[in-house]
């Protein structure tokens, strides 16, 4: 049976040679190499649940009067998008379960990407020859955020409408083209034309997922070609990869991880409420909610908008309004820095050699310090994004909290840099496997051990 299958395929495509190697491909066994796989499995869960949702959802923004099982909104005028999201949540069997799994999977997808990116950054896995895949990874991160934001905007509930209004204001702040970009993308001035719902829908269910799928394909193809990097260890060199064979050993483990990811997402979807749109009500341009929180990965942008200075530039009769600096310039600089990091590091270290062996974070204290500083910056902004919630529970005025985070924007990364540098340096001085060199222990005739350094 197996023989026939292999022969049949090989007669037509000549696959036997490839298969022979592919099935025995070495996958390093370190747990941190599985972080990226979580994202892959999240994406599969998102595709499956997303298809179910798309078949039960009407993105139109035309006004309808809701009649359905959710009594508190019965008889209320709202967009078809919001009405169909309510219908999906209350009247479609397992609809709310799938919707919540989808939302949790999206949150975990972006979280997994950031953690995976941290692993790659702190171990220097982005160095030659993997700069290309680093860039593909950063692009995937951006696409995932865009996909998340368009999905968040689809149900046309009060919070999603406010989020869209803020995004539109940021777009309006772009010099020269901002106003045109806003009018063309939204089909007119805010509160946008009825076309916005279907446009967001097309972007969310077709354009962005196709781009993400393509980028994942490229990410994996490059990985496959270049093979994995690996941590230092016995028999591991700059010219090989040591690990479990893909099939069946690694495949079984990876499958377990994938199903475990799905299990966690299903359990979250069943038991932990997420984005209860029926509590927010339909979007109305003149209504607001307080406190208002975006999904976690947008929090840093919202935080940046909150703590930025009230400065606008007026030049030659034109305006660059204040949201431009935290909303466009800051993310532009940060993502530019991320994309260019492999080249920045190469310019600093002058290290052009290809690397298969990874660093431990302590091995390169300054890189670790830069990474920790970036993390602290994101943390400060993300926390600033929920300042109103903190104000409510801490009984401190929210503008005081915002001033604290404004200082934190400078202080937190600086402190993070200094502390991380000092810690990594200290750990490095104490030595590790490869600084001390490998030693062979030999039992001597007195019953003790002699050390013998292996060159």
């Amino acid at each position: 049976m197996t023989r026939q299958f292999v022969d049949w395929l090989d007669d037509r495509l000549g696959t036997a040679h490839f298969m022979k190697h592919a099935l025995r491909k070495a996958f390093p066994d370190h747990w941190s190499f599985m972080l990226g796989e979580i994202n892959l499995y999240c994406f599969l869960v998102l595709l499956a649940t997303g298809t179910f949702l798309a078949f039960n959802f009407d993105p139109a923004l035309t006004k309808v009067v809701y009649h359905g099982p959710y009594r508190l909104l019965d008889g209320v005028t709202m967009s078809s998008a919001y009405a169909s999201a309510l219908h999906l949540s209350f009247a479609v069997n397992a609809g709310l379960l799938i919707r919540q799994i989808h939302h949790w999977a999206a949150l975990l997808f972006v979280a997994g990407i950031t953690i995976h990116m941290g692993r790659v950054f702190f171990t220097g896995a982005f160095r030659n020859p993997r700069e290309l895949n680093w860039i593909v990874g950063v692009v995937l991160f951006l696409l995932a955020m865009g996909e998340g934001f368009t999905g968040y905007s689809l149900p046309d509930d009060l919070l999603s409408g406010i989020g869209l209004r803020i995004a539109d204001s940021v777009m309006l702040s772009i010099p020269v083209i901002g106003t045109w970009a806003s009018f063309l993308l939204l089909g007119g001035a805010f509160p946008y034309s009825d076309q916005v719902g279907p446009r967001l829908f097309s972007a969310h269910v077709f354009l962005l997922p196709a781009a993400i799928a393509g980028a994942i394909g490229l990410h994996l193809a490059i990985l496959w070609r270049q093979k994995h990097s690996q941590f230092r260890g016995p028999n591991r060199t700059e010219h090989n990869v040591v690990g479990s064979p893909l099939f069946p050993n690694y495949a079984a483990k990876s499958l377990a991880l994938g199903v475990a990811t799905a299990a966690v997402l299903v359990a979250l979807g069943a038991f932990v409420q997420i984005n209860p749109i029926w509590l927010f009500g339909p979007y109305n341009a003149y209504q607001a909610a307080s406190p208002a929180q975006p999904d976690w990965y947008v929090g840093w942008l919202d935080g940046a908008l909150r703590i930025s200075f009230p400065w606008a530039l007026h030049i030659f009769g034109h305006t660059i309004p204040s949201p431009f600096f935290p909303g466009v310039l800051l993310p532009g600089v940060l993502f530019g820095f991320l994309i260019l990091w492999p080249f920045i590091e190469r310019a600093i270290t002058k290290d052009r050699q290809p690397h298969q062996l990874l660093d431990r974070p302590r091995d390169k204290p300054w890189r670790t310090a830069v990474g920790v500083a970036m993390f602290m910056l994101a943390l400060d902004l993300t926390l600033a994004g929920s300042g109103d919630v903190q104000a409510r529970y801490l009984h401190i005025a929210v503008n005081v909290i915002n001033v604290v985070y404004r200082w934190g924007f400078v202080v937190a990364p600086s402190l993070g840099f200094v502390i991380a540098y000092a810690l990594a340096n200290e750990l490095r001085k104490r030595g590790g496997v490869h600084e001390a060199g490998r030693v062979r222990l030999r039992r001597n005739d007195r019953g003790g051990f002699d050390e013998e350094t292996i060159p």
Partner: protein
Amino acid sequence: MSGKRVRAIAAFLIVAILGSVGFMVAYIMHASIQLEGLALAIALVGFVCAALGWSSWIIGRDQVVDHINEYPSDSADRSAATGELQQAEREVSRNGALLKVLYVALGAFGLAAIFPFRSWGPAPGKTLFKTKWKPGSRMVRENGEIVTKDALNVDSTVTVFPEGAVGDAASQTVLIRLPDGMGASIDGYVAYSKVCTHAGCPVALYRAKEHELMCPCHQSIFDVVHGGKVLSGPADHALPQLPIEVDPQGYLRATGDYPVPIGPGFWERG
């Protein structure tokens, strides 16, 4: 491979079967999403445990070593590839003038491809510079009720629209009644655009004691006694104030549109 381990894996798979059956039953009975999700999660956990058992107890733990030898290619191949490219370059660019025409043609086509984006929406024109308020527009509430000069108690607010444009996003206005003698009010009333000048959220929180409007999104605070000027937060300009008067019948009305564009800043705003 002990029998105990085989039995354990079999048990996990039976759990997976039970979970799947449980989900089918829960689905048919329209059970709660908690029950449906629980059954599904149990099935998946069964599979996870079975796969883990299989991978650690049944499949051997061999290690393989792959050698990195597929790249970079050897220098002969690289030279050959470079040579091919250079040869192609020479052939294509044999006639330099023709190549320049090609660049212009491609540029023109690229430019043509940008044009259809124009069909996505209307030109901004003066849309962002005006609202539906006109001289004499009476103020109406969300429910269409016309606002009289006795409509509000001191220190309270209401969201109003120009008559005939209830719900219009750009025209949304917050009408506030201040204590007597405070600010440049008309019979105690001041009216401000409800669209935050920072990022466009409705400036929905009125702090009566301080006479401040606060935006719930990014916490800009505006002083309604002093022309809506920014007291704190990221907003870079004051809330536009609507010029109002009381008409002979005692209704509040606008004497004209907002003197400056409402809402967040933009390039053409000046």
